[in-house]
């Protein structure tokens, strides 16, 4: 299923799809946000922003606006707790 990081539920995972070149800052790529890598949504801050994700072993926080741009293929459906 096609989705974005911002649409994940806590604990859900997805694989990053190919994205256009200018979409993300290079820093995010360096931290491991590359197409084909797995992303897990770890925690959501109050007011639903920012989001705390685990991508490729890197634990990072990004803002919702950016998370919306990163498209994923959902890999497993964990029932929400």
């Amino acid at each position, binding site marked *: 299923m096609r989705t974005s990081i911002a649409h994940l539920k806590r604990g859900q995972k997805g694989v990053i799809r190919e994205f256009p070149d200018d979409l993300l800052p*290079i820093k995010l790529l360096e931290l491991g946000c590359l197409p084909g890598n797995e992303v897990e949504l770890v925690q959501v801050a109050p007011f639903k922003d920012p989001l705390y994700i685990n991508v490729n072993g890197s634990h990072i926080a990004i803002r919702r606006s950016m998370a919306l741009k990163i498209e994923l293929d959902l890999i497993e459906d964990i029932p929400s707790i």
Partner: protein
Amino acid sequence: MSKQINVALIGNPNTGKTSVFNQLTGLNQKVGNYPGITVEKKEGICKLPRGVKAHIIDLPGTYSLNTTSLDESVAVELLLNKNDKDHPDLAIVISDVENLKRNLLLFTQIKDLKIPTILVINMADRMARKGISVDIELLEKKLDTKIALVSTRKKIGIERLKELIADYKNLSIAPNVDTTVIAPEYFKSLQETFPKEDLYKLWLVITQDVNFMPLEKNLVKDASSFNTKSKSELKRLQQKETIKRYQFINSILKETYKVDINAAKGIKATLDKILTHKIFGYLIFLVILMTIFQAIYDWSSIPMDFIDESFAAASEWVKTSLPPGMLTDLIAEGILSGIGGIVIFIPQIAFLFLFISLLEESGYMSRVVFLMDRVMRPFGLSGKSVVPLISGTACAIPAVMATRTIENWKERLITILVTPFTTCSARLPVYLIIIALVIPEGRFLGLGYQAMTLMLLYLIGFGAAIISAMLLNKVLKIKSRTFFVMEMPNYKLPLLKNVIYTVWEKTKSFVFGAGKIILAISIILWFLGSNGFTDKYENAESIIEKRIQDEGLSAFNQENIANDIAVYEIALNDSIAKNVYKIGPEQVTDSIKSYQKELFEKAKHQEIASFKLENSYIGNMGKAIEPMVKPLGYDWKIGIALITSFAAREVFVSTLATIYSVGSDEEDTIKNRMSAEMNANTNKPLFNLASGISLLLFYAFAMQCMSTLAIVKRETNSWKWPLAQLVFMTLFAYIVALIAYQILK
């Protein structure tokens, strides 16, 4: 044999780079700024085997050589610029064993610059717990380098690292990854245009966002012969480079790095769940903030009182044991009290940085930013601005120093500029005495008017900070990265050594950085307050003595002495009646007479001091600004106090005590004297509701603190920002106080 090797420590944030630096250099370190910018420069000396010494620079943390901030460009510039006196003979890349994959990205980039590069794998003590095993020998072969497996916590591996540094000449400088394959033709034409230059170095110069090394950048721009690329094309190539490097790293780690997925990984997840929780997260943060606040506000008052008393005693000692004269006064009242005014801040600074370094070291600070980012964003502030803003309620000086943890320069600058609006503890004595004078004691809905006024003043302080932050966010045109990516590091027990170093280094940088300015201004203020233009100042003693002979003491002092004597007489007679003393009536009269004489002498000295202050340079300045402060409801006496309290706000009270020749520091006495004071211009009490509110508001907004200005100068590395602060805050305070007085009078 004493050749120094230049060594650069470089690594991702949160890899324990500073711990390695501390282990290598001990206390042989120096912290300053890179010339012209506010990026912190840490360097130190390390003794190596065989009598060699290394000069070690701790470069700002970075994830790669693709710079997005000034801090990172400092690192890249040093690595690229062979002419820099600090250009490293050897680079040491510090990595964290748990994030080795990501850390190696930076390693391969530096290796490709053909600088000898050692890899340090830090936090080796965590390997067993995390089920990680690394084949070091194979990894050394694949990366073509030497590796030191280090645990700064357990003090393992540092000796081996020193050996490796001393042997740096045996390291290979062959690159890891061939970058040119991502665009062969482009790189071919680049090489043809600059046959002498290293290709990867050229590539870095071309692709950096930050404008460094203007010469080399122009060189590249001017050359029209090779086919240039558009920005987005370059960006695509950078992405390709990153992917290429990750491919290389993944292929190596597959053979050398194993993680047992069954090993414990629970603690981080559990802590995160609690610490970033919607309710508990905020509650815990609140408790931590309160503790910090309590520490700087309450706990530090004990050492502060001690410092205060010690310096007063030292000054007294100088005055009595040195021959009287200008030099003695300079030492006792100018220099000693100036130094005292610097040292007094040390407890607050030490306490705040003790807590901040604990928060940073433990990894908790990132969670604070995570919690607060959304709340602070509309004000142009960072989640990290919360700690400085709250600690500003105790004192703005450590608070401004604490903004160093905010990486984004614009957010940091805004935080520095607005922090002095929060109600610091030095405003409190001023507030308390004026509130006691002009606000009635009654209650409304169970709340005292006086307490409510004080609370309102605190709220006004925060409000001013928040609103000016919003305005500055709109007005300041500072280019800074607009995106937000923050690593959430692992939780760690803070290393005591690192905490102590931070506290020590921050205190030192305040005392020697801002201290000079504070001392200079205190000496100037002392000079202006203890010298005058006219004979009146010089002959103050004889003028006052003559006046007292002719007219007696001032009415206030006469009344006070009469009261004191009456009380004394009653107490004395009481004691005699109770047989505590056995003395005759003559002795009683003598005793009263000698007490009266003592009080008279004291009052005389106060009147002389008051006359001297009135006729000193500062006194003349106070009179000169009277026309300006008259519309605010003040007279020249308050004018003088406004000028002297520039040293520190609380000086306002003691200056008024001197002007009104009230000898005692007793707040009630000063208060009584102030409430009796009439405004010569309006013939109403000087401290009435209108002028009182006007004074309160003036002190709420004005930048009445030279020490804050000094620290802002140090932290922003320019006079521009502290001067802007001084002008805008004072102007704003003036306008608000003016409006308040004109409406209320």
